[in-house]
């Protein structure tokens, strides 16, 4: 009787292991390919969009936290003398300021705007993170967030580029997007300006821009893939 029980339990354990393994294999192991090559797991556009949007949401969250911290410690009063003139270095980038304006834009343009924004913020954030790391006024928590933020921008840009590629592949948008992704072309003359920005203004601007990115991505997604979630 104990032998029977042991064998049965062994079979059960084996089955359970097989189930788990198969699930694992299904989820992560296969590389993501956008070209529909054989042997790899193809992510749908909707999945890509969802990932990107989640990423941007997280990025925005971190930027909001950092901005709140800055405001608490360095600008307790809003009526600070010598009020800072918040001029963001990305103000040169034309972005739609309303729903209608955003909906009026074509998908490619919208995608371009998103990419422009993301590209524009890569360097400033990197420098910001560097300055925070060397500054002893900030705690580790803030410096970690800054680092994470700068990484996220970089990754988000890659993700959006992938989405654009996917869309181009699917014929949703034209191929004109790629040409605009080079950073030099976007902001050739702004290099000097962002160095002047103070950290606070930087955070303020980035918070806003990350919100824009997130919103634009959502609009893009709902326009391209209308689902019940939209």
């Amino acid at each position, binding site marked *: 009787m104990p032998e029977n029980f042991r064998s049965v339990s062994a079979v059960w354990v084996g089955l359970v292991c097989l189930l788990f393994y198969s699930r694992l294999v299904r989820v992560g192991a296969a590389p993501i390919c956008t070209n529909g090559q054989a042997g790899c797991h193809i992510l749908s556009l909707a999945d890509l969009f969802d990932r990107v949007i989640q990423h941007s*949401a997280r990025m925005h969250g971190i930027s909001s936290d950092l901005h709140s911290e800055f405001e608490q410690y360095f600008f307790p009063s809003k009526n600070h003398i010598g009020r800072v003139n*918040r001029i963001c270095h990305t103000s040169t980038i034309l972005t739609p300021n309303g*729903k209608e304006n955003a*909906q009026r834009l074509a998908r490619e343009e919208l995608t371009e705007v998103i990419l422009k924004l993301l590209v524009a913020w890569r360097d400033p954030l990197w420098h910001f993170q560097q300055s925070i790391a060397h500054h002893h006024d900030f705690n580790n928590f803030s410096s970690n967030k800054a680092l994470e933020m700068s990484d996220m921008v970089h990754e988000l840009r890659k993700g959006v580029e992938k989405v654009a590629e996917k869309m181009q592949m699917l014929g949703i948008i034209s191929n004109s997007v790629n040409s605009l992704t080079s950073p030099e072309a976007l902001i050739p003359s702004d290099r000097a300006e962002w160095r002047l920005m103070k950290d606070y203004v930087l955070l303020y601007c980035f918070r*806003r821009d990350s919100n824009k990115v997130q919103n634009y991505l*959502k609009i*893009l997604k709902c326009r391209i893939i209308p689902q019940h*979630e*939209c």
Partner: protein
Amino acid sequence: MRRAVGVVYLNLHSFLFFHVLSLCLGYSPPGKPKLTSCRSPEKETFTCWWEPGSDGGLPTTYALYYRKENSDAVYECPDYHTAGENSCFFNKNDTSIWVNYNITVVATNALGSNFSDPVDVDVVYIVQPHTPENVTVTVMEDKDGPFLRVSWEPPRKADTRSGWITLIYELRVKLEGEEEWEEHRAGQQKMFNIFSLRSGGMYLVQVRCKPDHGFWSEWSSTTYIKVPDYFPRETSVWILIAVFSAFIFFILTWILNLKSNSVKHCLLPPVPGPKIKGFDKQLLKNGRSEEVFSALVVPGFPPTTSSDCEDLLVEYLEVYTPEEQELILEEGKDLQEGCLKSKGSPSDSDSGRGSCDSHTLLMEKCGEGEGKEEKHQERAQKGKRQQKHQTGWEEGDVSHTREDVLSPDMSEGRVKTWPSVFSPLPQYSSRPLDHQGSLETARQLCLSDSLFPPPSTSSHLSYNAKEGLALGSGQQEFYLGKKQTHPSNPQSQPRWHLQAHSDFNISSMDRKQAASGLQLPGFRSTEYVEVQRVNQEDMVILQPLFSSSCQRDGHLQIGQGEDYSKVKGVDSGNMLLLQREVEVKREEEDGDRYSCDIQDRVTESCYTTSTAASSQVTGKPTSCAGTAMPVQEEMVLAANGYVDAATMLL
């Protein structure tokens, strides 16, 4: 020139006058207004509300001015009325998202104006949607029971379809009458299920929403829903389990009750108590030893009935001669019970004897017998008893004396008897003290007799059934040790006493002593006695043998002569038939009798008979010569000199 100056001077004057007048009257410029909040319901328009300060008593007007980010152009509120009093509504055209508005409210009255503090507003962060609409709750059925399905729609103005706004929802439920709500986050879905409902309960449901970065909306209006009655499956399972457990519990209790005794024995084994017959724990606790010991005297012990006698030791009589000389009458016969006669020689061995027949024990008895005899003597001194003792061996009284003599011993239980093969065992009375002639009885009497002097004198042996038979024969004395068992059941039936009178010697000795059966001094050798007759009180009257002697186991051979020590048999009339022999010969009859080995055996047919059971004295003088006992009592002797009490019994 002069005119212009004059006009100016006049204006100034009137102005000053007006102001002074106002001040004198208590008017003042308006207080500072304050912007309370700005909200956008759908991220396309927004509204700002302000709070007016004191108006200073004069009608005050408010104006809202705003500046857009990075622009110096000041614009006034386009709409003061849509949103109500003290509000400014910005429509879609005037609203720019992701643009910082710098808003200021100005209160103006006749005396002056007052600016509020500027407020920076970015529409993205001030979104507060309207409540979700069309909240519907339905009851749906599931295998586990009913559940609530709540569904709603986003507020009409919020554009979630284009992805412009992303709303997350939250709902709350409570039972009617409760105070606390149960809140659930629903995320972006527009439907939610609520489980674990109370059957028959009335539920209240509310929903609200919030943009991903914004403020929560107000709770929607309450929706009421009633859950129908149902029986929850969980409860039924628990009820089943409870009933089952109770059932098993009751069964176990019942079984335990039935087997309570065995369980008690298992868990608490009974402490063994004393198993002595007649032992009374209560008496012992009371601490009175006499009562305890008296209680131990169980009438049924030692058993003496014939049915038990085979299991018990043989009853036999040992007759010992006291102290320096011991004359022991032996039996030539071997009894079944193995009653062995004690030796004549001092060297004694315990082999082949019953437990009670040790030499020392008998000596003890002798000693006791002495004491007893004294006692008896004392007793005998009372009234006719004394006379009986002294006269000894008179008929009719012997029994009394016997009784007296015997009974105390009986009560002390020193005499032990074993049931004899011979048969009907004598019955003992439970209380030997209170009856006449209802005594003991030795089945067998082993007499060791001492040589008797000339036959002219017949010696009467006063036999003390309990302890011993004392014979007076010159200087010989012997004891008849009789061991008797307690009567198992008192019967009035054949009981008999053995009494031997020693006549001849009495004269030479203290008669008293002899009568009471005390030991007589100066035993020289073993003597044999013969039963002369049995008197009416069932006393066996012995007389010494003159010539016969039997030797056995080293005993002396007395000699040859007539002897009546053989019991020939018991006839139907309960008469013991003695056999007179010249010489004693060993023979075995029915395994009951002993006889000594004698070369020449002369068997005579003369015998004496005695009736043991008859109450009448039927003394018969022996037809044989030699012994003529004047006494009426008869003695019966076994062939080998032993008198078998059993044979007397009929």
